[in-house]
């Protein structure tokens, strides 16, 4: 499994309220949620994001509300992976459960800037910054997590077992 795309970069404590504001939580449709993804932190995100693009942030990404709508919106917007120094624990769980790849890697978080072209190999956990010619070793997903992501989420994974 691989991901490849251009980077959108954010700072510490990106909360799930800015990822998908509660005023849109009267919907649970992924496509509709995606049209408001990151709206309160980066209103141009939806306009600029392309399929495969990557979000890189620093500490505690996805803090706050447990709304699964947050990783759902990010995934439906076309994002192929989120890299951060650390993730809030409920977001971490939710992302895996819905099949959005996420990687904790402090070095990559520091060494990647907005607009960089990045490639990720999920089998090895390697992150390549093609713009800067640098590489970082993130944690490879354990096999069961790779299977959950390949099955596009926990429920399909349980059903396939």
């Amino acid at each position, binding site marked *: 499994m691989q991901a490849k795309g251009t980077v959108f970069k954010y700072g510490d*404590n990106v*909360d799930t309220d*800015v990822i998908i504001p*509660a005023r849109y*939580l009267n919907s649970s449709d992924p496509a509709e949620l995606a049209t408001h993804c990151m709206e309160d932190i980066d209103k141009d995100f939806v306009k600029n994001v392309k399929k495969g693009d990557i979000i890189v942030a620093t500490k505690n990404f996805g*803090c706050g509300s447990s709304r699964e709508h947050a*990783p759902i919106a990010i995934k439906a917007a076309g994002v192929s992976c989120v890299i951060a120094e650390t993730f*809030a624990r409920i977001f971490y769980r*939710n992302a895996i459960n819905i099949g959005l790849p996420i990687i904790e890697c402090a070095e990559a978080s520091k060494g990647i800037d907005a607009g960089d072209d990045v490639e990720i190999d999920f089998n090895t956990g390697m992150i390549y910054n093609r713009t800067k010619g640098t590489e970082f070793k993130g944690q490879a997903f354990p096999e069961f997590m790779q299977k959950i992501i390949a099955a596009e989420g926990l429920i399909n994974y349980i059903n396939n077992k």
Partner: protein
Amino acid sequence: MGMTMTQKILAAAAGLEKVEAGQLIEANLSLVLGNDITSPVAIKEMDKMKVEGVFNKDKIALVPDHFVPNKDIKSAEHCKCVREFARKNDITNYFEVGEMGIEHALLPEKGLTVAGDVIIGADSHTCTYGALGAFSTGVGSTDMAAGMATGKAWFKVPSAIKFNIVGKMDKWVSGKDVILHIIGMIGVDGALYKSMEFVGEGIKNLSMDDRFTIANMAIEAGGKNGIFPVDDLAIEYMKEHSNRPYTIYEADEDAVYDEEYTIDLSTLRPTIAFPHLPENTHTIDDIKEDIVIDQVVIGSCTNGRIDDLRIAAKVLEGQHVKKGMRCIIIPATQKIYMQAMEEGLLKIFIEAGAVVSTPTCGPCLGGYMGILAEKERCVSTTNRNFVGRMGHVTSEIYLASPAVAAASAITGKISSPYELGM
């Protein structure tokens, strides 16, 4: 090496003699909770699963409370989805408008959460029930779906931070000030993935409502759960509200903690979290300039309980909300609403010029019932002051206790009852 209180509960629920931090376990669940925002997503996921129905119709709680009474057609559709699921699966603990309340105030009141329980809820403030000595934690909708279907969830056993509580709070200081002080000290990711274990002789000076408020905001420090020892006060509360058996777990004397802090309640002052993070705390004495506000909200799963309303009423009695200000007061459950009525608190609020609403999470997450316009400021007893949380992206939320919120409603700027000579 001994176990913490949280680790002991998890070990028992997983059928293990011993667990240690970092270990992955599968635990039996005492209760699975969802609301009108998170349950529809969980129900959709559960529909995809090859299961007959829910694992136990008595061990699921469905509480439409966020956008209820329905704020618009889409919310109404979500609530309808939850209602129909509850009917189809004969869910015992489904709470319709008229009997519902804000979930984390409602469930303990209904006796559905007791010491020793393992509870997951598709709502981040599920950590509230740690006040009763339960392990409870927030999850997402998919985990809720799997929990409803199987009665189990997997957990990584958390390590812990110990907070040794000593002393006694001053008159206008409350549980909210304690937890804001702690979050200000350790930061919004200070307890990331960890349990926050509150111990010490000072706990006897915290009311149950103080403890619910403190455990409620463990998530605001990134915590997996917050938990209190089960003392006479907690036992009395459970006996009054529940006929379910409870189990008391105590941390081993040689339990290991990542960090330990001592919190002297007698040194705490009214504490306010400035925009846009709960860790941006200042005591009332540190605020040198007037911070003029437009709105006050008193309510939520954090501070909508009877003690909170009593404190607000004590401040507002015979006073009036400053002209041009809005003060919105939301009792968290129907029972609390009734109690407030019988104690004459509602009369005090209405005479003071505040509006009193039916239970709802509404304004806390910018749903409805008090949305902020561009650049407006609100002092709120809720739990998050993130960008855009209560409305316009340029609006500002100052998190505070009911005492500070009520005093601020009178002066129209951030104030404490001390300044009003109370």
